[in-house]
């Protein structure tokens, strides 16, 4: 019944035998908490029964950990890569080699100690990726090169005569370096707030434990508060702020170093290839033919110090948006972006502004949300009988902030058609510029709310298979939107235009 996949004639290969070490260690790691709980339970119950459970609890993860190695096989035929796995449900994934769009390698610290790599092969659009966890590092590298070479092989022949793009060295696959880590970029780390979310999450988890601590009850809290209030409130706030800032500096810089250690972005075999990581190393490969555009983000704080981030928008990658640069100087982001796009301009040229009506809507959108909050605050004040003074002050501050956000979101708004690239500016506090090849546009949506119809504005959406699957040009004049769409996709709208 069961085929013998191990037989060498069929070319089936197993994963690296070192996986036998990897999985049990991981399994024990996952089982350690239940194990400890069980041990505590046993020590309390005093029954001999527990000493039967203990060996099972240790041996079971080892056995289950070994199963994937025993049951997973893969092979490379002339046309396909096939992976077979599963114990009871046999699972075979197959991907045609010419459909391979991306090959990513990843190695956690444990992988690296054992000299292993996890391989993920991406194909087609939004499909599940084929995962091989794990291969010996050398095998993984060889597999990656083989897969990418094979995909590239038929494409090289026709691209030889007509090679108009001056940047890409089509005939010889010499890796071209696009960017590598420059440790002076570390100055941008504290200004990138993405990691703050993680930190907040960690604090949230800690506070969960805080509830269970015996010292944390109302009485101690009150006495602590009294103790704190002996000092000047401002001094306390100051100390807390400085301490918070110090923690943030350490966390953000450490995070940056860990994530972007030995970062290198190169172009080879018609693909973009990114490697980085201190403990967990990542190696991401995106086929350039599938890159439909780029997105440059300048978050508020980063803009103050002249920093930016860059992502590529591709089809057939897991979530379409791949960050290809760490927070780095704007010039570097623009340079890499231009070399990916093979065009100068889309990332730097001024955008067409959307006019005073769009500004009014941008302000209104932000103020409306602030007014809702203020109204809720006022209602709460009335209900609880708090002093009006605080609410008034808070409301005023909120409205001012909302007005500033509205103005900034208007200033980021804009669009342009640069050669064969559609450019859209967006973002409230962060300045975001999205550049999409017009070839990648696979449809248009023009939508108008009732308010927009009254003042002749519209939201124009270019739909695409790449990135977030839509590029939004917000609050643009309806006629301008239609002109833009008609010019970006010549011919598509012609028959629907009123003459």
């Amino acid at each position, binding site marked *: 019944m069961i085929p013998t996949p191990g037989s060498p004639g069929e070319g089936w290969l197993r994963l690296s035998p070192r996986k036998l070490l990897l999985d049990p260690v991981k399994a024990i790691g996952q089982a350690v908490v239940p194990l400890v709980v069980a041990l505590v339970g046993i020590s309390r119950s005093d029954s001999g029964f527990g000493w039967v459970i203990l060996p099972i609890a240790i041996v079971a993860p080892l056995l289950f950990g070994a199963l994937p190695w025993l049951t997973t096989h893969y092979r490379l035929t002339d046309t396909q890569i096939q992976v077979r796995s599963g114990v009871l449900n046999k699972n075979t994934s197959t991907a045609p080699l010419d459909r391979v769009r991306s090959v990513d390698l990843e190695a956690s610290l444990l992988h690296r100690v054992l000299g292993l790599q996890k391989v993920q092969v991406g194909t087609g659009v939004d499909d599940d990726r084929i995962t091989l966890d794990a291969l010996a590092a050398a095998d993984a590298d060889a597999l990656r090169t083989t897969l990418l070479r094979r995909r590239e092989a038929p494409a090289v022949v026709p691209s030889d005569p007509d090679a108009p793009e001056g940047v890409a060295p089509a005939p010889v696959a010499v890796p071209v370096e696009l960017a590598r880590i420059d440790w002076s970029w570390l100055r941008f780390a504290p200004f990138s707030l993405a990691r703050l979310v993680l930190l907040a999450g960690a604090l949230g988890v800690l506070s969960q434990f805080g509830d269970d601590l015996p010292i944390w009850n109302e009485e101690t809290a009150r006495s602590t508060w009294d103790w704190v209030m002996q000092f000047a409130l401002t001094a306390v706030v100051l100390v807390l702020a400085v301490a918070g800032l110090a923690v943030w500096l350490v966390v953000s810089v450490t995070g940056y170093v860990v994530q972007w250690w030995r970062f290198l972005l190169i172009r080879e075999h018609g693909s973009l290839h990114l490697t980085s990581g201190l403990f967990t190393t990542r190696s991401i490969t995106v086929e350039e033919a599938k890159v439909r555009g780029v997105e440059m983000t300048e978050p508020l704080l980063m803009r103050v110090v002249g920093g930016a981030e860059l992502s590529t928008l591709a089809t057939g990658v897991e979530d379409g948006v791949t960050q290809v640069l760490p927070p780095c100087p704007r010039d570097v982001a623009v340079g890499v972006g231009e070399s990916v796009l093979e065009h100068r301009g889309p990332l730097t040229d001024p955008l067409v502004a959307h006019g005073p009506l769009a500004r009014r809507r941008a302000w209104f959108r932000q103020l409306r949300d602030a007014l809702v909050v203020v109204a809720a605050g006022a209602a709460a004040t009335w209900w609880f009988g708090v002093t009006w003074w605080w609410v008034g002050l808070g409301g005023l501050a909120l409205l001012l902030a909302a007005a500033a956000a509205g103005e900034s979101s208007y200033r980021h708004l804009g669009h342009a058609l640069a050669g064969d690239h559609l450019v859209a500016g967006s973002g409230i506090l962060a300045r975001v510029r999205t550049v999409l090849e017009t070839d990648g546009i696979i449809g248009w949506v023009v939508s108008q709310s009732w308010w927009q119809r009254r003042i002749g504005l519209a939201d124009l959406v270019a*739909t695409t298979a790449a990135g977030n699957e839509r590029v939004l040009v917000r609050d643009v004049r309806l006629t301008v939107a239609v002109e833009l769409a008609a010019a970006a996709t010549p011919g598509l709208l012609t028959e629907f235009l*009123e003459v």
Partner: protein
Amino acid sequence: MSDEGAGPVVHAAVLREPAHRVSPQAVPFWRVSALIGDAVLVVAVVVAYVLIPDVPGWTLVLVLLVAAAAIAHVVLMPQIRYRVHRWEVTDTAVHTRSGWIGRETRIAPISRVQTVDSRQGALMRLFGLASITVTTASAAGPITVDCLDADTAREVVARLTAITAATEDDAT
């Protein structure tokens, strides 16, 4: 296109409306489905008003407002929607307009169409209607033509399927 698609088009560009209306049967269909949905809402609000003891007097105004809005919705929405909803399938593109308070125009080139689905709910079957959804490789791009006459829907699906079968790109 005379300007080779490089610069913006010179004359003020206005999209004309798609050629066809949806089936006239759509009006009673929309009315009945709105009636069912709104009736549930109004009954729920009224029941809550009656059952909850000691409600302040001004909540009656809210209940009446909900009822008035529901009536306006049932009376006005289907007619407005029938005037707005239009569709057209040419040899190169699918073009639709929909909405009743807002407006939404969608255009997709047929060469990028991946799937063509038609759907007929129980209530729709009662009115002899069917809807068509055309999807592209973008999650933001599906185009739905609501409430076509069932026969027209079948024809359109057949035509679209024939055209898309002839295209061999992977449509991304």
